[in-house]
């Protein structure tokens, strides 16, 4: 299987879907000649022209409203919001329009659109540029929130998202565009709503998504040396939430640790923990543990930024504790 980067996987998915379906078009800031802030759309304007790769003004509300209107009338827009931090500026269009229209009009309309955007914290980008806001959208009935952790999932899920008839927030991660992985050749499609066991184990389930999957895998390596066998469950989407897969894992391991970037209270960990106690309470040998970022706006100083982010060492330490070690 070819090994490609996350960026290439996303780029290829967009390109292949644009070739497959004339109604797919891209819109967003700097996605044309500039190639996208994270260079995902590089070269697409040369192949498909400025009407199918529309570089817009700095107008997030306009972008998402435009995507919704176009989706209602037969097109399949894929919008890029430069980072998830800017999505608030246009959030109304997504939450009050795109997610509501199918239901509010009794099924008379559809809003098949994808909003791609990178989430996460890194590189001292500070309070207004380091947020993980995807849970806000996962709260909204009518939205799907997809968040892949590998190039293969990114490609397969982006293709499914573009073909899907619902409004989808497609969450990428700020620091993962250069991450490499094997991606199957041909029309590789991953179904939306299916979690994936990224590593099998018997002592503890780490339930996570996006970049934190890799921190979980690292922690699993460390713990394996101590004889602790960790199962890593990659949710791949926050809505739909694959409760079945994560509950099956917890019933097997009897311990669950939820790991995500962003804030603790009301975060994805809260929902996952609640699902586990509803469906697997009698199987638990330890209360569900949540690890997240600290509940502060991200500070600039390197020292403070490090202190505010989830750390692999903490995952290892909490896991040991859950198993009664040290």
């Amino acid at each position, binding site marked *: 299987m070819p090994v490609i980067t996350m960026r290439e996987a996303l780029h290829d998915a967009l390109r292949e879907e644009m070739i497959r379906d004339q109604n797919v078009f891209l819109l967003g*800031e*700097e996605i044309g*000649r*500039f190639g996208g*802030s994270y260079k995902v759309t590089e070269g697409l304007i040369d192949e498909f022209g400025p009407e199918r790769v529309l*570089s817009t*003004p*700095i*107008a*997030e*509300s*306009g972008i998402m409203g435009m995507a919704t209107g176009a989706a209602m009338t037969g097109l399949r827009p894929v919008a890029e919001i430069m980072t998830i*931090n*800017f999505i*608030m*500026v246009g959030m109304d269009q997504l939450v009050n329009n795109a997610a509501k229209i199918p239901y509010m009009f009794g099924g008379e309309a559809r809003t098949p659109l994808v909003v791609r955007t990178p989430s996460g914290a890194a*590189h*001292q*980008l*500070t*309070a*207004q*540029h380091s947020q993980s806001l995807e849970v806000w959208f996962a709260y909204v009935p009518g939205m799907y929130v997809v968040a892949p952790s590998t190039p293969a999932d990114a490609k397969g899920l982006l293709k499914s998202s573009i073909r899907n008839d619902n409004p989808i927030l497609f969450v990428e991660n700020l620091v993962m565009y250069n991450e490499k992985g094997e991606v199957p050749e041909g029309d590789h499609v991953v179904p939306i709503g299916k979690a994936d066991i990224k590593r099998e184990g018997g002592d503890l389930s780490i339930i996570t998504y996006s970049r934190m999957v890799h921190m979980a895998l690292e922690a699993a390596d460390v713990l394996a040396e101590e004889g602790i066998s960790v199962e890593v469950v990659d949710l791949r989407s926050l809505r739909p939430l694959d409760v079945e897969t994560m509950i099956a894992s917890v019933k097997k391991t009897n311990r669950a640790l939820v790991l995500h970037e962003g804030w603790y*209270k009301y975060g994805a960990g809260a929902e996952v923990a609640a699902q586990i106690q509803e469906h697997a309470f009698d199987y638990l040998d330890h209360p569900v543990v949540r690890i997240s970022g*600290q*509940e*502060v*706006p991200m*500070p*600039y*100083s*390197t*020292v*403070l930024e*490090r*202190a*505010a982010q989830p750390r692999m060492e903490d995952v290892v330490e909490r896991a040991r504790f859950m198993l009664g070690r040290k």
Partner: protein
Amino acid sequence: MVKEIERTELEPTSTENRPAEFHESKEELHSLFRTMSLIRRFEDTGWEMYTRAKIGGYFHTNHGEEATVVGTICPLRPQDWIVSFYREHGHIIARGTDPKYVMAELFGREHGVAHGRGGSMHLFDYSRHFLGGYGIVAGQMPLAIGVGWSSKYRGQDEITLLLTGEGAMANGASHEALNMIGLYHLPVITVVVNNLYGMGTTVHESAANPEIWKRGEMYGMHGAQVDGMDVMAVRRTMQDAMKRASNGQPSLIEAMTYRYRGHSVADAARYRSTEEVQSWRQQDPIERFYRQLSKADLITEEERNAIDESVEKQVNAAVEFADSDEHPDPNGLFDHLYVDPPAGVSL
């Protein structure tokens, strides 16, 4: 309500010096020249410190915009307010904040202007009524409605200078801000720093009508366009707008300028030609002001050298201060999150 539209003479591609008229004292003119030179030097050094990994995050500089920055900020009185955006190192320096505290912020240190929490995009100095740099494009603009309203409400003779980029003028927040400023006759001067690009997008690609100053009329304010590479022209336009603001008439000033460097340190700016950059550099605002002053016998080469030297010393001292300043204590991670939170509850 006066609805008068004026267009100040504009010659962004001319290298010819317009004969400047000076009402200011020599000291005042030298001070303007020094501030422009200080900003240039600060940005050069900051850029270098960034490449040496002393500074991180996004880093947007005012290289090329010094006349616009100094021309709009220096005429302000101590009681006036400034609301700015992420490209604001020069803004806070022009306002008089000691560069050493600005550099310390860029280094992420405890004695920086935001105590190492904010960084390049979020500089702040309440004592100088500098109400901050903000990172969401156009997100700072609605704040100026409230600041202007507050001055009026408290019955104070204060003016608010709202700075923004031309790219931001395509965002919805700009419309809400300008409409309400005009509607309530607030003492707010909005300066659109038109450096022709928002990242790689030209103003012609972002604005249905790229003559942004003309929007003044539709918001019930005075509109003016000015050569933002000419510090005295900017200053005159600003002083005129300040008089109007004191009489309850807001202004929208579009200053035509250019950013010499990429959008941020990471941007190689391949979307524009070397010829274009060169043509703007030929009318460099600092050199142009120097020529104007020396033509009028208001500055000598020795005086200029002395200014350059003192500026260099000041910036070097700022780096030294920043580099030796302490990092914030990680135990202070939750400081400043709430004021007087209740005890015994999970915040």
